[in-house]
């Protein structure tokens, strides 16, 4: 409650700052769709003042729902229902910009299988699982702030963020996961010849603790500690119900962006490492992983047109620790094997265009690209591998118009599709064993063609100059060729000033 009051007070304080401008014009100038091609370039807080032209604060609350007929990824479930509240502010200052955000989500994720770990995508493949699974409830808090300024041609910026998550289930098996991730990004840059050149350093710490309980008299499900492509730690399966993840991320980026219009470039490198520990076996260090991401984005940005090409290479290596004969409950480590490798290549192009006409503000964006993903489990003979390649493309359009002094309407539509090619699984025999069957189900989903299409509509009403309330609705239909489909909808109320 205190957090909610703080957010409301922050929003109220900002209202006076914005009062002199029309809130509708400020909403219209905040065009995230148009900024998509260069959004990654502007992540460095040195460029925070370039992200949008106007000061704007908004607070929204609502509900989002996605339910697929079958889980596209078993570990992430069939969808979610999420009640949310979020507030963000962006304030231009004489020296740059300052802002922040706060959010609270109360979620229910549906029918998660073969995973009891939160942030599964981040910690893959070293997840904890059982054969039962089910819905998971969660509460997520997130906060962040940034500051950006300059002294003559020297620009600087800092942003901090913190996310905390508690996820649980109130029937057996009863996982209770608590994770936190504080992070900081520092940037400094120099502006010359109409361009700003910058360097950014980022670091974040990640922690998660898992504990699974059973209270049923009818028995317990077996716990598995997965290590990738259908393999699990047989030796520690069963009763090891408490585990922990400890990781941290660090990265560097070099950026160049035009002050008004021109070329924009970003080169970045990020490394995320984490360990998995079995807490109830004397904090046994089970596995460790390192994920390196190298990326390059180059593009062009002007007031009405934006385009970029991107290339991303991601390599994840995973190592399992091998333990010898135990002495009681103490297992001596005898070796560490690089057992898992995943390599993802992504390249693509994004473009956006906008115009202001009598009929309103129009923005159109399109993207196309390819992803190549190869996972290998190296510590078996023969090696196991899974390859998923896909071509993807999408288009999105939005329209905004103030139909009167009091009413602003926004509408949009989008379509995305994915066409996999050259996919395959080697070295793994399909079986009814539940880890393998989920692996093959995930593969079937990932290697099937999929398409999603949606529409959104938003209406804002200006209560007084500088303050508007609105409603936002979204709907999307998702279909996967394997026979899976699902609906997404969202409704929310928004206060903008």
């Amino acid at each position, binding site marked *: 409650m205190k957090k909610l009051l703080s957010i409301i007070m922050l929003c109220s304080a900002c209202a006076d700052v914005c009062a002199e401008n029309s809130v509708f014009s400020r909403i219209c100038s905040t065009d995230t769709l148009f900024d998509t091609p260069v959004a990654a370039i502007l992540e460095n807080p040195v460029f925070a003042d370039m992200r949008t032209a106007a000061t704007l604060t908004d607070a929204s609350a609502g509900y989002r729902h996605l339910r697929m007929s079958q889980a596209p990824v078993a570990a992430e479930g069939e969808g979610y229902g999420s009640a949310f509240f979020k507030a963000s502010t962006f304030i231009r200052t004489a020296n740059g910009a300052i802002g922040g955000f706060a959010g609270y989500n109360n979620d229910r994720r549906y029918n998660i299988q073969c995973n009891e770990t939160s942030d599964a995508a981040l910690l893959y493949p070293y997840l904890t699982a059982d054969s039962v699974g089910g819905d998971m409830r969660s509460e997520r808090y997130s906060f962040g702030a940034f500051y950006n300024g300059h002294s003559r041609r020297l620009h600087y910026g800092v942003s901090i963020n913190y996310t905390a998550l508690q996820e649980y289930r109130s029937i057996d098996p009863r996982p209770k996961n608590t994770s936190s991730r504080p992070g900081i990004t520092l940037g400094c840059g120099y502006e010359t010849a109409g361009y700003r050149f910058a360097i950014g350093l980022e670091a974040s710490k990640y922690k998660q603790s898992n504990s699974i309980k059973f209270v049923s008299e009818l028995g317990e499900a077996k*716990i598995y500690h997965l290590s990738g492509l259908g393999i699990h730690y047989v*030796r520690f399966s*069963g009763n090891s119900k408490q585990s922990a993840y400890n990781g941290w991320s660090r990265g*560097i980026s070099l950026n160049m962006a035009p002050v008004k219009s021109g070329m924009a470039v970003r080169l970045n490198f990020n490394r995320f490492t984490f360990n998995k520990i079995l807490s109830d076996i004397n904090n046994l260090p089970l596995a460790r992983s390192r994920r390196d991401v190298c990326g390059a984005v180059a593009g062009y940005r002007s007031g009405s047109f934006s385009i970029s090409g991107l290339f991303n290479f991601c390599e994840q290596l995973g190592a399992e620790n*091998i333990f010898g004969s135990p002495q009681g*409950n103490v297992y001596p480590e005898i070796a560490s094997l*690089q057992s898992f490798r995943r390599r993802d290549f992504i390249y693509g192009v994004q473009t956006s265009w906008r115009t202001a006409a009598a009929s309103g503000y129009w923005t159109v964006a399109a993207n196309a690209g390819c992803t190549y993903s190869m996972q290998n489990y190296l510590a078996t003979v023969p090696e196991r591998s899974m390859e998923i390649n896909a071509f993807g493309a999408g288009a999105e359009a939005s329209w905004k118009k103030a139909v009167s002094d009091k009413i602003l309407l926004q509408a949009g539509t989008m379509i995305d599709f994915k066409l996999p090619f050259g996919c395959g699984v080697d070295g793994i025999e399909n079986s009814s064993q539940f880890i393998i069957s989920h692996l093959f189900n995930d593969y079937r989903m990932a290697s099937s063609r999929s398409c999603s299409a949606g529409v959104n509509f938003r209406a804002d009403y200006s209560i007084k100059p500088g303050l508007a309330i609105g409603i936002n609705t979204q709907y999307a239909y998702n279909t996967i060729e394997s026979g899976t489909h699902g609906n997404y909808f969202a409704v929310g109320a928004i206060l903008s000033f």
Partner: protein
Amino acid sequence: MIKHSIIILLTVFLLWGCSDSFDRTNPVEVSVTLALPDDLPDAEFDEGEIQFYNISNGTVTSFSAKPKGVNKASLIPGFYNLSFTTEANTESGRILTIRGSKNGLEITAPANIELPTHATVETDDLIISEIFFTGTLQTSGVQYNGDQYIKLYNNTDHVVYADGLCIFESLFLTTQKFNYTPDIIDEAVSVDAVYAIPGNGTDYPVLPGEELLIADIAIDHKTINPNSFDLSHADFEWYDESSDPKNTDIDNPLVPNLDKWYCYTQTIWQLHNRGFKAYGIFRPQYDSAEFLAGHRYTCDYDQVTIAGSFPMQKTGYWIENSSIVDIVNLSVESVYQWNVCTPRLDCGYAFCGTIDGDKTRYFRAVRRKARLDENGVRIMTKTNDSGKDFNSWVIPSEIELQHSSIDAAGNKSTQQTLDGVNMQ
């Protein structure tokens, strides 16, 4: 300049600090030389199969192996159990199963392994056909242990006298391993309970294909626990004079008691109801006094914890391997660490449940695999590998025979099987 250096150093630290090496894992070459049994000099050995079981991830690497010479394999470094099986044809025309195994091999570099092999011990005595150690549940869900039993079976073609045969419980747990000194596992099994079947040598004949039922408490347990069954027809029961008046045994005077040679507890002995020990039978060439006088075993070991290493001591008795007729290691997959006897006697384990404290283990037993011969007599499997010789986690024979409860809810057994799996 100093400021710049600090910034550069900080950056390098941020990016690379605490980074671990992730070197590609290369397989290592392992050479396995089989040491064939000395007592079969003229036997002809077939080509067999070597299996490396990766204890960490459960994968199996197997390849055919020559009985003589060096067998080479390429293995991912790891922690392995090694086993070899083949058959040998003796001069007399008998076909023997030859087996060898070594557990807990730490293979992280090229290694030469000599694997002793042996012909499967062919027993001419009773064997353990069933152990019901998990107990049952009362309707309230509370566990009930008094109905534990062991069955012995005459798998031979002639009468065997049970007189003098002893049942024992291992001193060590299969779920907890320390470096015990002295290590006597190649010569003997250490035990913490020994009970002998009474008799003068010919008092208790067991006909071929017949069974002996040895119960903890030989009464009709249904009078105490409606979910249990009747054991008043048992052939024997083990009875303990308890020093704790709150925890006493029940003696059915109509059922003969086993002779108690030794038990670690001053109260009453019960089988480990999660199945963490080994149970066996042996035929001693000595009496209880001689056993107690000459077979004392005291071992030292270090209790290793993350807080340090603490010297400990454990005391029991030992039974020489040559006297052991049959032994069955029991364990649970999630906490299994070792077999408490030489692999020559038993190289696997049977189980009820897959995790420690598995509540689905109740009303279940381990039963030796059986088939019917042409005369309708059960022939039981005995290859000294409890993991393969037994059907684990199956409905006990007494529950099947009496159609009693198979769960706390009181659902009745309707099946009748030879061994818990195969239908009669």
